[in-house]
C-alpha cells in the first residue's frame, strides 16, 4: 500500500489547466487552414484535391471568389501540400466552436 501511495505522490496532478491557461497544440498539429489572399493564384489545385469539397471557386460579376468552409473540413492538409504558392497553410489554431455556420466561412474575392 505504501508503494501505491508513493507512486501516487510521484505522479502528481496530471489534469490540464486548459480553460484557465491556453493549451498550445503540438507543432505538427493540423488545425484551422489559413489562406494568405495575396499569394493565391486561383489555380484550383486545392479545389481538385479537397476530399470533403469544402473549398470552392466560382466566378461572380467579373470577380473570382474562393470560399472555404471550416464546417466540413477534415484537416487532412492536402490543400497545403498541393498549393504551389504556399497560399494555404494549416495552423495550430483549434478553438473553432461557433454559434452559427456563417461564422465558419472564409471568403476571398479578387477582380479579374
Amino acid at each position, binding site marked *: 500500500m505504501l508503494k501505491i501511495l508513493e507512486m501516487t505522490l510521484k505522479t502528481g496532478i496530471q489534469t490540464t489547466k*486548459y480553460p484557465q491557461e491556453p493549451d498550445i497544440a503540438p507543432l505538427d498539429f493540423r488545425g484551422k487552414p489559413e489562406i494568405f489572399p495575396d499569394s493565391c493564384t486561383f489555380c484550383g489545385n486545392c479545389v481538385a484535391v479537397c476530399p470533403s469539397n469544402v473549398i470552392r471557386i466560382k466566378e461572380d460579376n467579373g470577380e473570382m471568389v474562393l470560399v472555404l468552409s471550416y464546417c466540413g473540413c477534415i484537416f487532412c492538409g492536402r490543400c497545403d501540400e498541393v498549393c504551389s504558392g504556399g497560399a494555404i497553410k494549416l495552423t495550430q489554431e483549434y478553438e*473553432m466552436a461557433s454559434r452559427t*455556420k456563417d461564422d*465558419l466561412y472564409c471568403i476571398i474575392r479578387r477582380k479579374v
Partner: protein
Amino acid sequence: MTIEDEVHIMGQQLHSRITRIFGRSLHIREVDAGSCNGCEVEVNSLSNPIYDIERFGVHIVASPRHADMLLVTGPVTRNMELALLKTYNATPSPKLVAAMGSCACSGGIFGDTYASGGGVDRVLPVDIYIPGCPPRPQAVIFGLMMAMNTFEQKIRRTEVVA
C-alpha cells in the same frame, strides 16, 4: 441610452437567465448518429483524469431524460434519423444541441448522399458547432464552455478582397 448599452444589458440578462435555468452545471447526453467513432474516443477522454470535465460541473449522463444538452456526432444516417428525433423529444426543455465534429456540422467526409443526412442542422436546431475531425478534447471543452456562456466565440466570418 445607445444601442450598444441596450445590447450589453440584454446580454447580461440572458446570461443570468441561463445560469438560473441551468445552474452552474450541465448534463450531457452523447448521441452517436452514424459517426466513425473517432469523436466518441475524444468524448471518452473528456472524463479521464487528464481533461476531467467533471470539475466544471459538466457530466455525461446515460439517459436523455437526465440531460440538458445533446452532443451529437456523425452525419445523421438514415437509420439514426428517427432515433435522434426521439432522443431530442425525450430531452426535457430547455435543451441545447451541440454538433460535434465535421460530419455533424455539415456532412464532412461523408458528404450529402443517399444514406447520409449531411449534418445535424437538417434534423434539429443546432446551438453550437464544434468543427474538427475529430476535435481535440480542448476544442470540445471550449465549445461546451461557450455553450455555458463562460467563453466568447473566437472565430468570425472573414471576407477579404485581394
